[in-house]
């Protein structure tokens, strides 16, 4: 082995000092346990999903129609989606426009689900492969996005909507106007 260069021997200490400074700097930062979608603040990707039973589907153009809307990602096999269904109905009653994206689901199952738990959606898009869900940056079902009138995603709600979240979502819709 060659003679150790004395300057090199200080290197581990310097590296540690850098790491230490950064660790101290990061201490006490609030924890963010959930990763928000990187799509928040960006326009909805171009898409056109077929509708249910030949009904109107959902496309990116429908989301750029001038008025803000809620886009709810759901599935018939998802239990929390059933739990949030009444709150979606409340949102619709209070004047919010809702669109649904049914992910990884058969049309018959989606139809049964909407018949049983109510259909608050103006338009429902069928996303059998779940690609649209990925394109939105959604990590699971249910999730709800606030999209403003120009098709830009303004807000993401992770998980099921609870009664306490309704007011907040209406506020976000108002802000996106």
């Amino acid at each position, binding site marked *: *082995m*060659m*003679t*150790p260069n*004395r300057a090199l*021997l*200080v290197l*581990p*200490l310097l590296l*540690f*000092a850098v*790491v*230490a400074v*950064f*660790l*101290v*700097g*990061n*201490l*006490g*930062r609030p*924890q*963010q*346990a959930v*990763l*928000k979608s990187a799509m928040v603040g960006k326009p909805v990707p171009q898409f056109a999903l077929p509708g249910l039973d030949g009904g109107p589907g959902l496309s990116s153009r429908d989301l750029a129609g001038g008025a803000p809307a809620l886009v709810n990602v759901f599935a*018939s*096999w*998802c*239990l929390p989606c*059933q739990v949030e269904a009444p709150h979606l109905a409340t949102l619709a009653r209070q004047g919010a426009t809702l669109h649904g994206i049914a992910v990884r689901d058969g049309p018959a199952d989606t139809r*049964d689900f909407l018949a*049983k738990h109510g259909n608050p959606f103006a338009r429902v898009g069928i996303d059998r492969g779940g690609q649209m869900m990925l394109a939105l940056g959604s990590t699971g079902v249910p999730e709800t996005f606030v999209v403003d009138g120009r098709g830009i995603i303004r807000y993401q709600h992770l998980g099921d909507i609870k009664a306490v979240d309704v007011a907040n979502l209406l506020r976000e819709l108002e802000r996106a106007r």
Partner: protein
Amino acid sequence: MIPEIGHFALWLAAAAALVKALSLAGHGVERLAVAAALAQLLFVLSSFAALSWAFMVSDFSVQLVTTNSHTLKPALYKFTGVWANHEGSLLLWVLVLALAGAAVALAPATLGLRFRQRVLGVMGLVSLGFIAFLLLASNPFERSLPAPTEGQGLNPLLQDPGLAFHPPLLYIGYVGLSVAFAFAVAAMLEGNVGPRWAKAVRPWVLWAWSFLTVGVALGSYWAYYELGWGGWWFWDPVENAALMPWIAATALLHSVAVLARRDALRSWTLLLAVMAFSLSMLGTFIVRSGLLTSVHAFAVDPTRGLFLMALLALYVGGALGVYAWKAGSVPVGEGFEPVSREGALVANNLLLSCMLGVVFIGTLYPMALEGLTGKQISVGPPYFNATVVPLLLAMVVLMAIGPWLSWKQSGTAHLPARLLPAGVAAAAATVVALALFDVRATIALLGFAAAFWLGVASLQILLKQGLTYGVVGMALAHFGVAVAILGATASGALQREALVSMRVGDVVEMDGWQARLIDVRPVAGPNWTALQAELQISRHGAEMAILKPQSRTFTRPAMETTEAGLQAFWRGDMYAVLGKPDGFGRWQIHLWFKPLVRLIWAGAFLMALGGVVALAGRARVRLPKRERGWPGAFGPQPAE
């Protein structure tokens, strides 16, 4: 009363640690070092016993018991609950540190009494910091009066037999590395590093490494069967925090061997010894300070984080400072040719260091980026697999060749004959995987080839190089690596998976296996209720097993966990997870068949066993008769 005695014993332990630490300065205090080490063990043990007692009798006037226990909890989990929280786990850490100190105090002082006093001094300093942290910022004996009548229960994920052993084993490993750390600092202070030092430190590194191996493997096994995600390693920052000291310890183990045998790599070995324990402390800091959210992060309190950071800066900064200051004056050891046993071991060390580097960057870079720019990125398996696996494969190639090279300078003419069986086995494995199992991914084919290459080469070393403890230990450990690689490759490349929605009575087919959902019904445990599915597994029509995956709901604290249904066959594991009902009478069932997955942990146990066998050899080498013939230490000989 008993908690107060425990609290008081901890203060006494701090005093004993202080005496130990002062022995670094001399002035006659050093003669008390051994006694102080034994006293410290006694006091910490009393303190730990007092806390255990409070948990066992559910003394809810102790705040820690209230927040982490419950009268309905089974006795085993009352006891493991002692260390399944921030304060208790630190007390366990301090206990293991005291045990290691006592072991150093009682082991023969082969490097002289003064050296042992210095080692105990460094260990005293380390203990003092952690005891102070307990006493000043994380008192486990804090009372809360009036006492509540019932506790809040323990995180259900931690109510598992795996938890009974995972932290203690890991801690024994970490703390074993603290001995190597103390040896390195003491050696730098004395300017005395050589083969004798390496031989004295090697048993400590060996047992630390063996325990660490088992501890990490148990953690991985626990994640496999408890989390219900169907994987065994997720490259989660907390897993990486335990993996990094292990990689450093593996490198240290090999460089210590070179130092012991050939008196080369002196300052590199010192640096590794310092780094291995520093990474252990860094890991503890990362998971305990609230920098990360995980099942391990009990303390989400920045003042505690700052305290731990101060300790980390003191110890790691201090040791690296001593290194920067002193390592330059450590005389350079012997040289060697690139093609030699040392050359192969240096290459191994370089590859391990690269691996350490990529894991370190992958773990800390996302945190750094978020701290600097607020941007969140997620670094996961794609990065780690792409960086670690090639390095591992390169190491495997070397691991079969290295043991056939001689020390200092080696010919290569004998290698083709020696490596022929391994080469044939690797080629055969690739062909079989390609032709019979239809494996197409290059990385998987390389994995099979690597496993058989290393496995056969290790067996051959066992046959050809004679049955000494050192050779058997090395061959066993390397064989274990091959076994683990085979398990990892096969369970990944040949895995079958089905995610289905089933009604009771439905059958799902998966590659020759059938699973029939017989029943889903509620069952109850001591502190949980669960929905349990019964899945009848058959293969080509013959019934093989009944799997019982559960979705558990714990009452205190209210939380849902999955208990995977698992059945091990010789060819692999059938693994089932029960998901949610869809409200129409169907249940989500996630089914995996994981071929040879258990070899991953079997391989890890073989590695640890190899370490233990080598340790038995070291114990024999300690006998004075065997000490002849080794080159003496460089520098002034310490007075015995």
